[in-house]
């Protein structure tokens, strides 16, 4: 399409975009085609911007006019509807906040529970390994004691009653050492448990004292004067 300016035809971005200019005849001075194209692009964009602005202004005018007219005809009604939408917005925000808190609390509780479960497994695993170790140690030292008892017997390896006696002594030495080692470990374990209980008691006592110390002034502040006499 070429430029044909007519009074009844509005200039639109489309027109600017598709405009062509006839080329100049040879030998005569003409315009740089690229310059013209760039300028046309600018005009087109400006037109689009202006048209968009006009649309939103028209919308604004329509809204304001409706509000003015609405106030004149049925003012409170319009505003009530407006207020309801606002209330819905506020309630929705509050709900989303509550949802988030619940989700956070749930995630926190999940993390705590997973952690507790993992630590429980670790503690149980360690305890099992420790128990196996204690048994193994008791067994080994018992065996050593049994061998020592056998070696010490004057008729080691002799047939008959003496041999039986030697074996029994070895077995006795084994069992005595085994139970000694086991008892030692058990005592150490119980001592550790008792220390834990003491520690627990101490920390609980001091925690309660701390809380009471913190609460005392707060309580006297919170309760107004006359009530203190009751």
């Amino acid at each position, binding site marked *: 399409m070429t430029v044909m300016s007519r009074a009844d035809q509005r200039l639109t971005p489309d027109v600017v975009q598709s405009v062509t200019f006839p080329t100049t005849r040879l030998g005569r001075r003409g315009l740089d085609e690229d310059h013209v194209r760039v300028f046309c692009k600018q005009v087109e964009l400006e037109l689009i911007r202006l048209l968009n602005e006009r649309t939103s202004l028209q919308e604004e005018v329509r809204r304001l006019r409706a509000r003015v007219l609405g106030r004149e005809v049925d003012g409170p009604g319009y505003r009530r509807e407006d207020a309801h939408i606002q*209330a819905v917005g506020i309630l929705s925000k509050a709900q989303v906040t509550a*949802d988030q808190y*619940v989700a956070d609390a749930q995630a926190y509780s*999940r993390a705590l*529970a997973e952690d507790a479960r993992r630590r429980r497994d670790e503690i149980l695993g360690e305890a*099992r390994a420790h128990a196996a170790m204690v048994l193994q140690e008791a067994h080994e030292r018992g065996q050593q004691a049994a061998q020592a008892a056998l070696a010490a017997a004057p008729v080691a390896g002799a047939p008959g009653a003496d041999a039986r006696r030697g074996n029994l002594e070895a077995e006795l030495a084994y069992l005595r050492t085994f139970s000694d080692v086991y008892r030692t470990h058990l005592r150490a374990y119980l001592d550790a448990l008792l220390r834990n209980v003491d520690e627990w008691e101490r920390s609980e006592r001091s925690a309660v004292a701390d809380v009471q110390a913190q609460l005392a002034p707060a309580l006297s502040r919170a309760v107004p004067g006359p009530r203190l006499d009751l």
Partner: protein
Amino acid sequence: MHGDAVALFFYSDLFLRHPDTRELFPVSMSAQRDRLLQALGRIVAEADRLAELGPFLQDLGRDHRRFGAIADHYGPVGESLLATLAHFSGEDWTPDLAAEWTSAYQLVAQVMTDAAAIDARRNPASWDATVLSHELRTFDIAVIRVATVQPVKYLPGQSVAVESPVRPRLWRYYSMANAPREDSTLEFHVRMIDGGPVSMALTRSTPVGSWLRLGAPVGTLTLDTSSRRDVLLVGGSTGLAPVKAILEQLSDLPSPPRTHLFAGARNAEGLYDMPDLEKLAASAPWLQVTGCVFDDPDYRGERGHLPDVVARHGPWTGCDAYLAGSTAMTTAVASRLTELGVPAYQIHVEDFGWSES
């Protein structure tokens, strides 16, 4: 237009117009909004096939009884639904469109309330149950025995939605671990899910004498009583509950079929019901019970995952199989049985998954 924003607007609108309806919902509404959008999506997608939609809407209507929904609530819900659609449609909302939506909603509400009304003639909206005993079998599995005021009519293998007063308006499905009894007592096996609000409340904060609320029984993992085949029962963790109920039903038959029950767990501690199962097996020559664990080197019994252990004890081609547990476990066992030549119609699986919180 974002789906969640629409659901959010809808509920806020409803609660503002009818504040009393807020009581029917839990504190957190995010799961609720998803559910609403799913149901609405299905209704809109199948709106022109009412025959298919009918049963879904009837179930929905019956199911809403336990939430305390009554016919009077359907009007306000429709009102807010229309207001929401109008708000989000803006200029596109026309009286014609409004009329169409109104009549569509009225139809949906009618089907739901009709189904609810018919159900109300036979069943209460929900069943109140008192906790008779609460046994913590492991640190995270509880066996809870309750008595209902009105008997719950169910088939062994079915489940009910359970609500605890500690977590109001949150419902989770649990299977009854026993066949219906004269004294209306029910047993539930509850495993604590980390961070799961309901399972934690049930395992930790449900003392004897407290009450629970139960919904109507659902589920299709039920005994094929017309079959004369042997029976294979497989329960992973607390998936044991429904298969144990079926086992009870079998033991009441005049001549029970040959039955093999497999209970699976991570470690020996997780086989929380073995003493009882072994006692049953000792007095029933038709019953064999196998416990197996997959992560416990010290365990003296069967070790391995359920699909492998079950496969080792085959053949199962002549058996009806009933499987319950996590979706992963039931899927694995079912596909192993299929590989071993068990026809699909002989394999019954707990098919709503199970409550993961």
